[in-house]
């Protein structure tokens, strides 16, 4: 298992969750698409988050090298902070 691929897949999955969250509030059609996955848009996002994570890990495993450093973890932590704040600010402005 490539650790760099794992942290990159996790970072991009977190950003995609934030993008899907904001996108589903801005586009009724996208929200409906997510709802069609599991009967509720949140279930759709839940399923997609792990599907994305798996697919992105597979993709990054093909292109990432083996050298894993603390910077890779920093990228994941940065993605979590950025995505969390993006969701928070969006809902404050959207409320």
């Amino acid at each position, binding site marked *: 298992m490539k*650790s760099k691929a794992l942290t990159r897949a996790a970072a991009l999955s977190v950003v995609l969750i934030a993008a899907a969250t904001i996108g589903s509030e801005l586009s009724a059609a996208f929200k409906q698409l997510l709802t069609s996955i599991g009967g509720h848009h949140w279930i759709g996002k839940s399923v997609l988050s792990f599907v994305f994570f798996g697919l992105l890990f597979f993709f990054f495993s093909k292109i990432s090298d083996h050298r894993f450093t603390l910077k890779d973890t920093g990228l994941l932590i940065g993605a*979590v902070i950025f995505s969390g704040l993006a969701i928070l600010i969006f809902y404050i402005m959207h409320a």
Partner: protein
Amino acid sequence: MVNPLIFIHAVCAELGLFAFLWVLVEMLNPTETRIARAQIAAVFGFAFLIFAWIMGGFYYVEIYGLHVKPLITASDAKWVHSIVMEVKEHVFLFLPILATSTAALLYKYDGELIENRDARLSVVLLSGLIFLLGFSIAGMGALISSGYRVALMAGMV
């Protein structure tokens, strides 16, 4: 009366978060024995978070949306749903991914964690992030419960 699903969701999530705090403490000064304990704690932490996800998700979709959300959104505390609940339900989705990554790093590096500073610090930082993010989410859960009580006390039923 508090729905039992909320109790199960909260207890499982907190057990999962404390399991990752346990991982963090074990990794501060790792030995073979401490790494083995941390691996077990990470597996239990991951399992508890997944169970909390399923329980919380079932409650959110089947009960909250039908019985709690309408009361909160009709009250003066409607921001509790439109901001706090929306943020909570979506930021929660980061936790299973972070828990999977942390547990996978623990098993990948195993005994190497004693010498490999970057891998060890990665596990420490990710475990700390899971704990802090998780308890921020728990705080949001407490706010939502307070919002529901405010709605009930305002005579919205």
